[in-house]
């Protein structure tokens, strides 16, 4: 049932212990009369990956797993569950907790309806390559959150993983444009990136609206670029770097790079340190006269 690929043996035992405790805690939560379900992870049928799992009773809690393949972000299911009456248990690792914090801040779920179990994560593994997942290389947890329980101190693991992605900043403008054209042309506009994103909780996406009609639906490269650019800007300052968009993309578009570059710029230009970490307002929803404005020839 347990697939650690790069995680060393000693840590593997540690993960297994955590899994046991996760199941105990979830089962105990599900004994509560007001408990609806506990959202965590289970192994996929081929046992190569994990997927979200909604445990409804203590027996089902035994299907929950915790290991270095727990990529999905359980917090992203919460907005659509906000009308449910009762308590929802949810297991979160650092990146998920950042998303959860943003969701609570944006009124998408009420803290009082949640039982939050914090899991100290030591880095996830990419099931295809066996290497540490790229998002974990720049992880900024522990995240400050009022967890109901945790499986240990929410500390930052000392991961010294280099970014393996193409260095976009080193590219010329033309090269970068060519890179993104090629990358975004793979998109088939299936919307998986949008639907899996914790931050895409608008009741109706502007790309679905017919009046006003924000976007054409021709599906050509211009449309694809428009879609991804708007989405990236929309998430600037809210993206918590969980990379679920890239994982969900069936065509392998490097959406993680797109969002990451916006996060980098936010840090560089506005000293904005990433969503879900502080109580700073989302970047693009604030205005300060000291904001740099290089586009209009202002101070860099």
């Amino acid at each position, binding site marked *: 049932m347990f697939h650690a690929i790069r995680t060393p043996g000693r840590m593997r035992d540690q993960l297994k212990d955590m899994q046991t405790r996760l199941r105990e805690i979830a089962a105990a939560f599900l004994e509560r009369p007001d408990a609806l379900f506990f959202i965590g992870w289970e192994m996929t049928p081929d046992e190569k990956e994990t997927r979200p799992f909604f445990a409804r009773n203590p027996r089902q809690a035994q299907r929950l797993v915790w290991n270095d393949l727990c990529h999905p972000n359980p917090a992203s299911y919460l*907005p659509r569950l906000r009308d449910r009456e009762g308590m929802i248990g949810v297991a979160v690792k650092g990146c998920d907790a950042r998303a959860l914090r943003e969701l609570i801040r944006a009124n998408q779920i009420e803290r009082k309806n949640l039982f939050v179990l914090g899991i100290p994560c030591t880095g996830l593994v990419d099931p295809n390559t066996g290497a540490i997942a790229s998002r974990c290389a720049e992880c900024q947890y522990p995240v400050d959150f009022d967890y109901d329980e945790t499986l240990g101190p929410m500390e930052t693991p000392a991961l010294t993983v280099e970014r393996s992605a193409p260095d976009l900043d080193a590219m010329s403008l033309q090269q970068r444009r060519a890179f993104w054209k090629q990358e975004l042309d793979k998109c088939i506009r299936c919307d998986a990136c949008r639907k899996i994103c914790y931050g895409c909780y*608008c*009741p*109706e996406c502007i790309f679905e609206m017919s009046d006003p009609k924000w976007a054409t639906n021709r599906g050509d490269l211009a449309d694809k670029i428009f879609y991804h650019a708007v989405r990236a800007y929309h998430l600037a300052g809210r993206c918590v770097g969980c990379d679920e968009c890239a994982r969900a993309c069936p065509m392998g578009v490097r959406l993680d790079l797109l969002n990451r570059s916006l996060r980098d710029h936010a840090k560089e230009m506005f000293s904005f340190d990433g969503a879900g970490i502080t109580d700073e307002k989302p970047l693009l929803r604030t205005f300060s006269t000291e904001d740099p404005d290089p586009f209009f020839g202002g101070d860099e």
Partner: protein
Amino acid sequence: MSRVKVGVFVCHCGSNIGGTVDVPDVVEYAKDLPLVHYSEDNLYTCSDAGLTAIKEKIKEHGLNRVVVASCTPRTHEELFRRTCEEAGVNRYLFEFVNLREHCSWIHMNQPQEATCKAKELVRLGAAKAARLRPLEIARAQIKPACLVIGGGVAGLSAAGSLAQQGFEVHLVERNDRLGGLTVDLWKLLPGDRPASELLHTLTARVTKNDNVTLYLSSELNEITGFIGSFKATLSTPSGKKDIEIGTVIVATGAVELEPLGLYNLGKTEGVITQMGLEKMLSDGRKDLGDVVFINCAGARGPDREYCGRLCCAVSIKNARYLKEADPDARVTVLQRDVMAFGTEFETEYRKAMCAGVRFIRFSPDRPPTTIGNDKVTGVRIYNQLTGEESDLSANTVVLTTPLAADSGASDLAQMLKVPVDKDGFFLEAHLKLRPVEFATDGVFIAGAARFPADIGEAVAQGTAAAAKAAAPMFAGEVSVEATTALTNPRLCSGCATCEAVCPFGAIEITQDRHGRPVSEVNAVMCKGCGACAAACPCGAIQQLGFTDSQIFEMVRSLARDGDPSGSEG
């Protein structure tokens, strides 16, 4: 909805537009635009003849959208809107195209290009006009009652003035007595009148008028609502009290800064502040020996950049009193420069110097220091003009500190949803144009709560705020702009971004019937600035009169028809 019929009226504006733009050509062009049913040019559309033409053509052609392409909406939009209204077309079905300032004046030397641009501007205006929807002006009833927060000089002046005009006034004072800081003052400039005399007059106006309800030792707990109908809860010694008022005047004043430690204030006996001195003087103590005043104490530095404004006058006043009371005492004022504005204060300055008060200028780079361990014995001063350092003997050192914002101001500001500046003072709507108003309708500001003010200014501002507050209360109602923001609850995620960005406190997150958070715009409080519409991540807020679909129609019109080859836009 009946079919859209747009009428386009292009103005020559004498030669202002007509001298550059080929107006008849623009009119011909407008005739072929989608949904345009009529188009004509006028020498002056704003003239009687022009306005009559608009009304006649509305009737004759059944026009239900009107576009005027002329000078500027700043001066003429209201005129044309009214004209439409008179002809039975909703005033918001009018669209202004600014041909003079956006086109003819700035392209005076390129008539051909200007004509081309004029056509495009008219096309955009007509495209938007076709999507305009009638809007209704909301009116709010104004309850003729005012809440005055603060019973100092400004608050008393405001309350007295309103009460005399017959309005119901609720005056709330935190302390157990009226008068604010003035209570502790001895004599006032000019004229050396005792402060108590002035206070007596001001207080009597308030306490003897039945229109005023006085709440001493009371504070404002909560306030909701908007111009015309605020609901406030006061905590009074006899418990909570709910009141309803139409307007609010903030006159909470300020406090004297007490920079403990500065010049050994609070550490060495004999180092006091001006308020301390005033109290002593009021108590009849004048035997203070040699006195050194140190001005700009705690002001005009890195922590507090502003000038206290009245400090110089205060030190001039008190230095003279002391010198006059004890001519043998050495009275010295250490100053960075003297701000004795106006002839009255200039005269006071002279009188002090004639009385024998010494004024020595120091530099903030080498500030004076007090001498003496337990009790102050002197002040070491580097005289900026002579370049010499010397020691002055002093039995008393008086620090002239500025007035500072009350620590409670920011809470009050949050409650009223009005801004404060970086020093914590309340911020008015416009320094020059709207000095006693907030941007939020129905809330006004007077006195030192805004910025250090002397007694005369506080009285003037209190009276001015009362006049401003009285205007809507006399009218009994206000009409509010219809081009406000509107939330589409179906699209709203309830994320409260709008609430955070609204500068007028006009948006509230409420719950819909399913208990979901949803944004609600208060049309009376909304000023139509559009900040929320721009910030809304879901596209759920529309700015009426500038809706996305109206703007898109303009963009689409520009993109679609802008390229005569008809290639993809």
